[in-house]
């Protein structure tokens, strides 16, 4: 039986993988030292550390050593022995580490078992609230914690609750907003699927805080598994008396129902969401009155995001003070990001607020997939902005991201490298908002459409310098005059790219060139005769038969027929296709 395990992995991507070589060397050493029956060496696929040369990790001690050279083998093995000491000069001290509050149970417990959740401390916060705290102390505790809404805008949760609590009304409502719609963001889905009871517990506590007796989950129908698991979890909670009448033997009653959203992006906005639950068309209406004063069916209503609610049980269980010491001055706690795009390890990352974007993308997610440098990071989905590489050392919190012209948003984070065009990206996001605009107010309905027109024009090489001024002007009126958050923020991707990448816009307008090679109207493909081996693979692969010629006379691309799909460029093994 082995007592220790040494994991090995070469994390230097610039050279040939040395994992196997080192693995054999380490094994040989162990055999010589006659330790091969005590220590197992294992090659791993990923060691959680990137760009640090050869890395080893000793288990079960969980000590990581980086930039190992062959002469360190003896020291590492000695350190791994039962009386060994940690090698200070080799030990890895991570700059950034994940900190899991919201995802505390995700991947650990069985989401379909309430017993699992309770055994990991679940519903104890609810018990504490009902038995010890009462409404006032509960809201005080949330106030001390400093937690702010995780849906994007970052409104202090305690204030929302307090407004609703102070309202004198026989009927009040709580709603969990699970209408997650940002492209590339799926934090809420994972929490609902991986730990549904934590959200339910948060919602029960919110209901108790304001005195509501009815709650709703508003989940989009595109999340069938999340709906199924929440449904099961609600049923289990009813069975155990954690929902329904006299919860945990107290006088507090709460019923929870699920409402499915049909997938309209605007229904994530709280007033539109309320309309949708009421059975009306999902369009926003002006605020104030805010929902905490006049919400669902005209009654005081608190709407919280999934991630906010999943935080609440921990805040209560460990105390507001404990929570407040995590994060930055203005933003407390952690944030879950769904990191996607051109990144090596795409997935969910939960970090304490204040970690930098670079730490998230480089240290935790391992940098770009292609190994090319990062060009920018987009946060906040279609309402957010693009943050250029040079500003990646900004600590992440609500205020900092806003200063950069982006927003925290619900937590989508899309990594872009040199192949991404900074006219094409905002065109995509704006296109999304134009499609999802409900059409009720003119600034959003018309403004978005007009802006998209200008972006299309620029990307097709028909732009003129005055277009940029026009874009800015329309963006400003959309920000000021739109009815809801969708229109007010829809121009952020355009404004932020204009701010940081104006030269790229100018390149499109003045030189009719797309530096990233993305805008198909501005690129032409041609065959470099010197490199062409006349294999004919481009000829057979061209879907529109735009390549003429034969093996004898050589090939050429007929520009009139070419649709710029890039197929020939991809299939050519001799790099004989020129893309310009």
């Amino acid at each position: 039986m082995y007592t220790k395990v040494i994991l090995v992995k070469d994390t230097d991507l610039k050279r040939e993988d040395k994992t196997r070589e080192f693995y054999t060397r380490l094994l040989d050493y162990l055999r010589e030292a006659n330790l091969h029956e005590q220590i197992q060496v294992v090659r791993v696929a990923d060691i959680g550390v990137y760009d640090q040369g050869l890395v080893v990790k000793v288990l079960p001690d969980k000590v990581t050593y980086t930039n190992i050279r062959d002469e360190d083998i003896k020291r590492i093995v000695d350190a791994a022995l039962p009386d060994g000491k940690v090698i200070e000069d080799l030990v890895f001290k991570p700059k950034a580490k994940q900190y899991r509050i919201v995802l505390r149970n995700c991947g650990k417990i069985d989401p379909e078992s309430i017993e699992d959740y309770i055994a990991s401390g679940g519903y104890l916060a609810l018990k504490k609230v009902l038995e010890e705290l009462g409404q006032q102390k509960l809201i005080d505790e949330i106030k001390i914690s400093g937690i702010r809404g995780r849906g994007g805008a970052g409104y202090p949760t305690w204030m929302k609750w307090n407004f609703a609590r102070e309202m004198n009304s026989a009927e009040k409502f709580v709603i969990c907003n699970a209408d997650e719609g940002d492209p590339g963001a799926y934090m809420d889905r994972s929490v609902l699927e991986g730990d549904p009871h934590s959200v339910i517990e948060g919602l029960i506590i919110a209901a108790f805080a304001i005195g509501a007796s009815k709650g709703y989950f508003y989940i989009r129908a595109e999340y069938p598994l999340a709906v199924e698991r929440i449904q099961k979890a609600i049923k289990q909670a009813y069975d155990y008396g954690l929902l329904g009448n006299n919860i945990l033997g107290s006088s507090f009653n709460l019923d929870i129902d699920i409402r499915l959203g049909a997938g309209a992006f605007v229904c994530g906005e709280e007033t539109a969401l309320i309309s949708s639950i009421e059975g009306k068309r999902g369009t926003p209406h002006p605020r104030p009155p805010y929902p905490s004063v006049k919400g669902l069916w005209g009654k005081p209503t608190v709407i919280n995001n999934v991630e906010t609610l999943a935080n609440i049980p921990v805040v209560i269980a460990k105390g507001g003070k404990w929570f407040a010491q995590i994060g930055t001055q203005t933003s407390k706690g952690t944030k879950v990001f769904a990191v996607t795009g051109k990144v090596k390890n795409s997935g969910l990352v939960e970090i304490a607020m204040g970690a930098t974007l670079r730490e998230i993308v480089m240290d935790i997610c391992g940098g770009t997939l292609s190994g090319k440098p990062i060009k920018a990071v987009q946060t906040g989905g279609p309402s957010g902005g693009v943050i250029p590489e040079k500003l990646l050392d900004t600590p992440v919190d609500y205020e900092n991201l806003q200063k950069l012209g982006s927003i925290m948003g619900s937590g989508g984070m899309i990594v872009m490298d040199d192949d991404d065009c900074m006219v094409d990206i905002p065109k995509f996001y704006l296109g999304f908002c134009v499609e999802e605009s409900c059409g009720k107010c003119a600034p959003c309905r018309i403004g978005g459409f007009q802006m998209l027109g200008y972006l299309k024009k620029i990307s097709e090489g028909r732009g003129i310098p005055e277009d940029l001024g026009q874009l800015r002007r329309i963006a400003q009126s959309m920000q000021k005059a739109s009815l809801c958050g969708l229109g007010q923020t829809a121009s952020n991707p355009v404004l932020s790219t204009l701010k940081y990448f104006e030269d790229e816009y100018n390149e499109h307008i003045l030189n009719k060139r797309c530096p990233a090679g993305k805008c198909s109207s501005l690129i032409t493909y041609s065959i470099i005769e010197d490199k062409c081996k006349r294999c004919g693979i481009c000829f057979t692969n061209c879907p529109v038969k735009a390549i003429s010629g034969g093996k004898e006379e050589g090939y050429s691309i007929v520009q009139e027929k070419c649709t710029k799909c890039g197929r020939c460029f991809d299939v050519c093994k001799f790099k004989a296709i020129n893309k310009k």
Partner: protein
Amino acid sequence: MNKLSPADLDKMSKVTVDKPKDWIKVGLSSCGIAAGAEDVFNFFVEEVKKRNLQIEIKKCGCTGMCYAEPLVEVSVEGLPSVIYGAVNKEVAIKILEKHVISKMLVNDYIFEVLI
């Protein structure tokens, strides 16, 4: 099912679910299922029955390493618990034969995260 009293809740929260037994957890959220985790889960259940192994196969949500789905966490007494990524049937057999039966970690499929 009986309604819980606060005292019942306390008692239930002290039950240790994981500790005493060996287990394999398969991540079965949308990301895992999309990558084929359901097949892996069913395969484990069948094989364990066929080989009469004393190990529990459990479901869990997504740990966040979506790039390496399907993810399988294995905890066997005497070995550190580790997460295997990109698990298919071939890897699943290796996990059972090498990790569970021979008590040795399997090469090349472990994914470690710093948390």
